[in-house]
C-alpha cells in the first residue's frame, strides 16, 4: 500500500531521484520519498546506510549530487542548483545528535538566539521562549548554562531551541541515542507529543527499529544508500519486500531459513517444511517464519528442526527462545518461563505455511 498523498504539490516533503556522492562513493542512491503535511517520517537503517547524509541534505547543510528536494512544492535543493534555499531559509529546524547547544549562552539565550537572527521583537522573543520552555517542562532551567544541566535536559533545550521559530519541518538526527534506556522511552512519547503540538512535518533518523515502529507514520528503511522499502510501519512488518527489511524490523527478529526443493516440498537439512507450490518454479529460496509461528518442543503435525539452546528471554509471560541450528540463529516462542542449559538439544516446530518466501538474493516472491 502506497502512503497516502494528496498530490505532489501538497506534499510537505518530496524527495526525487536524490543522489549524494562523496568522491567515488555514493552515500545516497536514487532516493524517492514523499510525505504529506503532519507526517512523521522515520529514516531507519544500520550505521553507514546514508540516513544522516539524507537528513543533512534535507537541512540544507549538504548539496545533493543529483535529484531534487521540494518542501511544500518549492524546490529547496537540486543536483543542478545545489542548495537553492539556505539552511536558514527553508523553514526547517534540526535537532543535532550532539544537541549542539552554544556553550556560552544560557538555556534561554540558546532558544532566543535563532529568534534574534530571524528579527523577532524582544517582547515576542521573550513570550516565545517562555512558551517553549513550559512546553518542554524546563522553565526552571532558564538561566542555566548547557554545561550545568544533565544530558536529558540538554536534549529538551535542543528541542525547544529548534521548535521556537515554529518551523514547518522538524528534522531529528538520532536525538535519543545519547540517553539512557529509561529516559529514551520517556523522550519518545515527549517527542511525539511535541510533533502533534507543533503540527510540523517531522523527519527522524534512527538506527533503532523500535523507535521507527512506535513513532512513525511513514518509515523508509535504508541500506547501502538505497531505500529498501517505504511505507506505513505496519505494512513494512506485514509485507516486507526484502529479507533485509524482514530481518531488520520486528521484535523478536523473524527467522529466515534457506531451503532447497526436494520433490514437492522445500526442505532444510532433509526436514521437509513448506509445500513447493508456495514458491513455484524456484529451486532454492529463503522462507520467513515469525517467532510466534515457531513453537519450542514437538508439536504434532509440526515440521521439526533440532538445534542447541543458546538463550531465552522472558517476554510478556512467554519466553523467546533462541536456538542454534548449525550457524543459523532461530527464535521461537515457548509458554511460561523456559529454562535450559546452553548446549542442550531443543526442538523447534515450524507451522506448515511460512509467512513469506524470498529469492536467495533477498527479493520477495509472491505466490
Amino acid at each position, binding site marked *: 500500500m502506497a502512503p497516502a498523498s494528496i498530490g505532489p504539490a501538497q506534499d510537505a516533503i518530496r524527495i526525487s531521484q536524490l543522489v549524494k556522492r562523496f568522491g567515488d562513493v555514493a552515500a545516497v542512491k536514487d532516493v524517492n520519498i514523499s510525505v504529506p503535511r503532519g507526517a512523521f517520517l522515520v529514516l531507519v537503517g544500520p550505521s553507514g546506510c546514508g540516513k544522516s547524509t539524507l537528513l543533512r541534505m534535507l*537541512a*540544507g*547543510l549538504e548539496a545533493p549530487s543529483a535529484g531534487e528536494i521540494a518542501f511544500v512544492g518549492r524546490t529547496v535543493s537540486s543536483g543542478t542548483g545545489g542548495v537553492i534555499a*539556505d*539552511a*536558514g*531559509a527553508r523553514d*526547517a*529546524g*534540526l535537532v*543535532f*545528535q*550532539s*544537541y*549542539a*547547544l*552554544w*556553550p*556560552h*549562552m544560557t538555556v534561554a539565550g540558546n532558544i532566543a*538566539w*535563532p529568534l534574534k*537572527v*530571524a528579527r523577532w521583537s524582544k517582547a515576542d522573543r521573550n513570550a516565545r521562549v517562555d512558551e517553549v520552555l513550559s512546553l518542554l517542562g524546563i522553565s526552571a532551567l532558564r538561566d542555566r*548554562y*548547557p*554545561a*550545568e544541566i544533565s544530558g536529558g535536559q*540538554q536534549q529538551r533545550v535542543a528541542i525547544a*531551541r*529548534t521548535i521556537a*521559530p515554529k518551523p514547518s519541518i522538524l528534522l531529528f538526527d538520532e536525538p535519543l*541515542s*545519547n540517553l539512557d534506556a529509561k529516559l529514551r522511552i520517556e523522550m519518545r512519547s515527549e517527542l511525539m507529543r511535541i510533533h502533534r503540538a507543533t503540527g510540523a512535518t517531522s523527519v527522524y533518523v534512527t538506527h533503532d527499529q523500535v523507535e521507527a515502529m512506535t513513532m512513525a507514520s511513514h518509515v523508509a528503511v535504508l541500506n547501502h544508500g538505497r531505500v529498501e522499502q517505504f511505507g506505513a510501519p505496519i505494512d513494512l512488518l506485514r509485507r516486507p519486500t526484502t529479507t533485509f527489511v524482514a530481518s531488520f524490523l520486528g521484535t523478536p527478529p523473524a527467522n529466515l531459513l534457506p531451503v532447497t526443493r526436494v520433490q514437492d516440498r522445500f526442505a532444510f537439512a532433509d526436514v521437509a517444511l513448506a509445500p513447493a507450490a508456495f514458491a513455484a518454479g524456484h529451486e532454492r529460496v529463503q522462507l520467513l517464519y515469525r517467532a510466534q509461528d515457531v513453537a519450542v518442543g514437538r508439536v504434532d503435525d509440526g515440521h521439526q528442526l533440532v538445534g542447541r539452546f543458546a538463550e531465552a528471554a522472558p517476554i510478556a509471560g512467554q519466553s523467546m527462545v533462541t536456538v542454534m541450528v548449525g550457524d543459523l540463529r532461530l527464535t521461537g516462542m515457548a509458554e511460561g518461563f523456559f529454562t535450559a542449559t546452553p548446549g542442550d538439544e531443543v526442538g523447534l516446530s515450524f507451522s506448515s505455511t511460512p509467512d513469506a518466501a524470498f529469492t536467495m538474493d533477498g527479493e520477495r516472491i509472491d505466490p
Partner: protein
Amino acid sequence: MTSLALVSGRAPLLRANRVLPLFLSVVIALLVAAPLVKILLATLTPDGLQAWTTVLASPLSANLWWRPLSTTMLLGLGVAAGCLLLGGFLAWLVTLTDLPGRGLVATLSTLPFMIPSFAGALAWGTLFRNERLGGSPGVFQANGFDVPDWLAWGLAPTMIVLIAHYFSLAYTIIAAALSSVGADLIEAGQMAGARRGRIFFGIVLPVVTPALVAAASLTFAGAVANFAAPALLGLPVRMQTLSTRLFGMIETGETERGFVLALLLIAVSAALLFCSDRLVAGRKAFTTVTGKGGRIKRFPLGAWRWPLFAVALIIGLATSVLPVLVLAASSLAPQGGVLFSNWTLHFWIGEGGGALAQGQAGLFRNPMIVEALWNTLKLGLTVALTTMLLGLALAYTIVRNKGTWLATVLSQLAFLPLLVPSIAFAAAYIALFGAPIGPLPSLYGTFALLVLAATAHNLPYAVQSGRSVLGQISNDIEESARLTGAGLLTRLVFIIFPLTIRGLLAGAILVFVKMVRDLSLVVLLFTATSPVLSMVAYRYASEGFMQFANAITLVILVICLAASLAAHLIQTRVQKWKQ
C-alpha cells in the same frame, strides 16, 4: 621511585606518607617562598626603604621607574595585540578554513616558540642595524638602504621581535580553542539562518573568548618579563624596560634599588595574570557539550585560498626559517653587511691570531666557549632531572592529599613562580643566597645556585606534567593489574613505567630546552668564570662580535631542536597506541 611505589599501594606506607609531604613542604618553602620573602625583607631595611623612596618618589624616579614602566606596558600591550592578531589569524586559517597546506602552516606557526627571543633579536640586528652606534652595519644599510633609527633600535624592533617569538604561543592556545568549536555548533547557527559574520561574532568568538584572554595575558606577561630583546635592541639607545633596569641596577651594585624594581615587576606581572584569570573564571567555562565530537566545519575561502596561503607561509617562514638562515649565513660571513660572500669557517673553527675577529679563535677552538657548551648541557640535564623528580613528588602529594590545606598550600606555592618573571626571580635568589647564611657560604655565582633557582622556577611546568603523568595511571588500570596477581615490581615495569615514561620524558625535555635557551634567569646568577652559552652569546653581542653571538645562538638552536625532535620521536616510538 618512592612516589611511584606509593601510587600502587591501596594502603600507602603510612610513614612515607607523612614524611614525604613534610619534606616537600620544607623544600618548597626554601626554594620558592624563602627567596621571595627575603627579597621583600631586604627592601625593608633602612637602605631598602631609602631605595623605595628613590625609585618611586625622587627626581630619579622618572628614569628608574615611570619611564621603564610605561615602556614596559607599551611593549606588553603591543606584543599582546600583535600576537592575538597574528596567532588568531593563523589559528583561524588552520582550524576553520579550507586553506591549502594547513599542516605546513600549523608546523611553521608553532616553530618560533622554539627559537629563543635573543635569536630573533640578533637576526633583526644582523639585518637592520644602522650606523648610529658604529660597528659593522646590517645587511640593508650595507646595501644602500637607509634604515631609520626607529626601525633599527628601540621599541618598534623589540616589539616586532617579541611578537615574532610569542605569537606561536597565542596560536597554540587559540587553535586548540577553535578546534573545540564543533561543526554542529556552527551548523546549528546556520539552521537558525545566521550568516557567516553573525556566526563568527555570535558563536565562534564568544566560545573562544577565554582562550583569547589567556593568550593575551600570557603573551603580555612574556613580553613584560623578557630581557633579551629589549637588552639587545633597546639598551644601545637607552630604552629601558623594567627588566633591563632591574638588571642594570644589580649589575652596577645598586642592589636594593634592583630588589625594589624586581618586586615592582613581580607586582605588575602578577596583577595582570591574576586579573585575566579572574576575567576568565568569571565567565562560564565553555566546555563544549558534544556527542559526535571532533568534526570541524571548514569555511571555504574561495578565491582567497592561495593568497592567504601565501601570506601565512610568508609569516611562518619569516619568523622561523629566516632568522635561522640569517644567523647561519652571518656566522660564516666575515663582513656583517654582506651575508653571502667570502664565506669562511673562521668563526666556527678558525685559529686565533689572524686578521679576523680581532685575532680571536673560532668557536670550537675557544676553551671558554667549549666549557660554556658543557656547562649549558650540564645545567639543562641537571635541572631537567631535579625539576621532574621534585615535580612528580609534588604532584603525587598534591593529588593524594587533595582537599587538605597541605595540598592547597603546596600547589599554590608550586605555581607561584609562574607569576614571577624569571629575572625578578633571579634577583630574589641573589637576595637570599647572595650573602653567606650562617655557616653556609654564599652561593652567588655557583652552579648549585643556578640549579636551585632554575628548579624552583620550572616547578609549575613540572608539577603540571607530573599531574598529567599520574592521571595516566587510573586506579582501575592499577587494580586490574593487581587482580591478575602481578606484584609491585611487575606492575612498575609493565604497567606504570610504560604509561608514565612519555609524560616524564616530555616534561624533562621541555625543561631542558627552556634551560638551554634561557637568558633572563642566568644573566643575573652566572658569573664570567663559569658561563653558559646564552650568556656568552649575549656578551659577544653587546661587544659587537655579531658572528660569534650568532654562531653560538645557532648552537643553542641546534641543541633545542634536536631535543624537541628526540621528544617527538620518543613520543611516537614509545606509545604507538596514542596515534
